[in-house]
């Protein structure tokens, strides 16, 4: 790492030894995977062995951050940034530029890219021109003109979202909240005798509907800041917080489960695909 006066710290002997050990371990792994591969040709075995070993190296490099920040983690992190940026760029190019723009822009290009030509449209040329203008953002003196395509992007998003959110996330959600508070009433005895989640468990189903109706109202009361949260309004707001806390708890639980599933997937890869000991 560079220091203020330009001197550089050379890696210590311990770091060099660790680097050599890691390199040797993964080299052995590569050779081992290549020699035990099941592919048709030697070349494919060598390639697959390298790919699995490299994926295992990257996986362990990221996990090494649990101990501390280190050169292996930084290597994997920087590689991830570069490769994934290019990945999304390429997908954008092939699916949008070649998939949507080229068929409306040029017969020659459509033939070259082997996509069916549809019809010329000035509309798409304007879109392409706006896209090129967006790249002007990289030029310090002409950066201001990039606001035009930015305005197109924001304007389209605002126009689409205004009506769509109003319809799907506001009206539909409000409409779905109005549910029967006593589900399929068949008398008090039947109502209290079945505490199951099944369709005939009316108490639980009715309780669920009550919670949804009251919970949504109280949750909205909590988000209403134009009136002081006092008295009945304060009590409703407090109930709203509790409902929101249950939501956050449930979301947290699901997030943890999702992450643990990914962790299990990576550990399975290391022990099964790489080390073949499962």
């Amino acid at each position, binding site marked *: 790492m560079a220091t203020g006066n330009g001197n550089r710290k050379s890696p210590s002997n311990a770091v060099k030894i660790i680097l050599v050990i890691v390199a040797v371990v993964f080299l052995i792994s590569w050779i081992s995977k290549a020699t035990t591969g099941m592919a048709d040709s030697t070349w494919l075995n060598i390639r697959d062995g390298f790919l699995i070993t490299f994926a295992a190296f990257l996986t362990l490099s990221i996990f090494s951050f649990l101990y501390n920040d280190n050169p292996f983690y930084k290597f994997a992190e920087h590689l991830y940034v570069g490769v994934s940026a290019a990945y999304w760029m390429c997908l954008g190019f*092939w699916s949008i530029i070649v998939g949507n723009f080229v068929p409306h822009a040029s017969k020659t290009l459509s033939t070259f890219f082997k996509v069916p030509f549809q019809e010329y449209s000035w509309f798409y040329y304007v879109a392409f021109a706006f896209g090129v203008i967006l790249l002007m953002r990289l030029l310090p003196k002409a950066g201001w003109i990039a606001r035009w395509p930015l305005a197109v992007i924001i304007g389209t998003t605002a126009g689409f979202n205004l009506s769509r959110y109003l319809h799907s996330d506001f009206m539909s959600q409000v409409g779905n909240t109005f549910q029967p508070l006593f589900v399929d009433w068949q008398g008090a005895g039947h109502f209290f*005798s079945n505490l199951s989640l099944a369709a005939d468990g009316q108490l639980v189903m009715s309780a669920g509907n009550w919670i949804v109706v009251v919970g949504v109202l109280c949750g909205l009361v909590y988000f209403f800041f134009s009136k002081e949260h006092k008295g009945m309004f304060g009590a409703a707001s407090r109930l709203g917080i509790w409902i929101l806390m249950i939501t956050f708890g449930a979301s947290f639980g699901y997030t943890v489960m999702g992450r643990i599933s990914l962790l299990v997937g990576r550990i399975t890869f290391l022990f099964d695909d790489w080390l073949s000991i499962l």
Partner: protein
Amino acid sequence: MKRQIPMMILSTIGTIFVLAYFSPGLEELEKGGSIFFDVVACFAFFLGGSNLVRVHIQKIARHNPGWGYSIVTLFGFGLMLFIGLFKLGNPLGIAGAPTEPGSWFQIIFQYCVAPLSATMYSLLAFFVASASYRAFRAKNTEATILLVAAFIILLGRTQLGLVMTSWVPDWLSIAQIPNLAVFIMTSPNLAGQRAIMIGIALGVVSMSLRLILGIERSYLGSDS
């Protein structure tokens, strides 16, 4: 002019798309507008990629701390871009999808991007566990409710939750932890999610209106 023209563009396009939603004859315009947006927005990927290259080249040229890692970023970026744009190693050539099974692009994704992405996210399991240990002490009613809800959801999704309450009779099945987890998800969680969604929808609508009417101008930046 540097501020007025973008505001005019935004207002015009925003108004057209709002009207298109309510006008039966303008579905084609809405569809075309969506592709128009995609083409313009696609260049944001190129802008991002170009900026990445610029930042890392500057870092290497100035020999900033950690400049060696910038070479790794540029190498990964260049390699993936070269293979992806020219469809190198694609079994179907230029006519094949970039993610064609067996293509070099797909192989790099499968053995580099996917493991890195999955491991990065799985790393969060450790940090979430560590942070929740510190944060989720049952200090007050709200924290206790959050903790209990999370605990029931976690238990309800595992075999342990099923085993712990398997003795509970069917007529009281709501008391079984997996069922309780389902009940939490479909009732109080739904109510909270719905309240949040309604709040977000109102926020999006008001922000969209502010943008279309030219009240919100922060996207223009501070310089004139």
